[in-house]
């Protein structure tokens, strides 16, 4: 019985590790704009927020301009 369960548990463990790794890598590479103000406050606008939807294309345009694109 234990011998039958072992491969199944290993498979479940590998699946969970794969999901965790995928979430970690995709989460880190999320597009966002961070604004830092003189009063020390900070606002992070993640992709999906209406402000970020306006700012991110402008950031891409700046990158393209710098890279001669």
């Amino acid at each position, binding site marked *: 019985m234990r011998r039958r369960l072992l491969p199944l548990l290993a498979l479940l463990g590998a699946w969970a590790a794969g999901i965790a790794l995928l979430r970690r890598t995709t989460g880190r590479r999320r597009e966002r704009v961070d604004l830092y103000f003189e009063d020390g*406050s900070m606002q992070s606008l993640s992709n999906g927020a209406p402000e970020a939807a306006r700012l991110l294309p402008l950031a891409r345009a700046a990158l393209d*301009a710098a890279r001669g694109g």
Partner: protein
Amino acid sequence: MTAEQALADLTEISSQVEAAALFDANGTVAASTLAESEPFVRAVQDLLAAAAEARQGSLNQLEASTLTGSVFVVRDGDSYIAATTGPEPTVALVFYDLKTALRAAALEPAPKKAAPRPRAPKKKQEADGDAA
């Protein structure tokens, strides 16, 4: 230190910075690592204007992170420095290097005449009693 020297130091110190430009609030470029800096500075100014509209307050730093790279902007009064990096930069380190470069460029001394060398203090004449 001149603005050009400040940018040269920045690109030497920070391997993450791909391109950078120093400019003022009017968009006048003081120094740049790019051959054609105007399109980049104009795009950064558009980004800053849109960011200012997004929230009230005096913006002094910005980082826009995209899948292909990041755009950083640091402001000090009317002086700005903008830079681009590849994806996933070390944000705090890039901000630190940009602030250092902006401060160094701001310390650019105005050309002035060499100050006259101070005269060496006159030697006290030996007391008359010396001869005695």
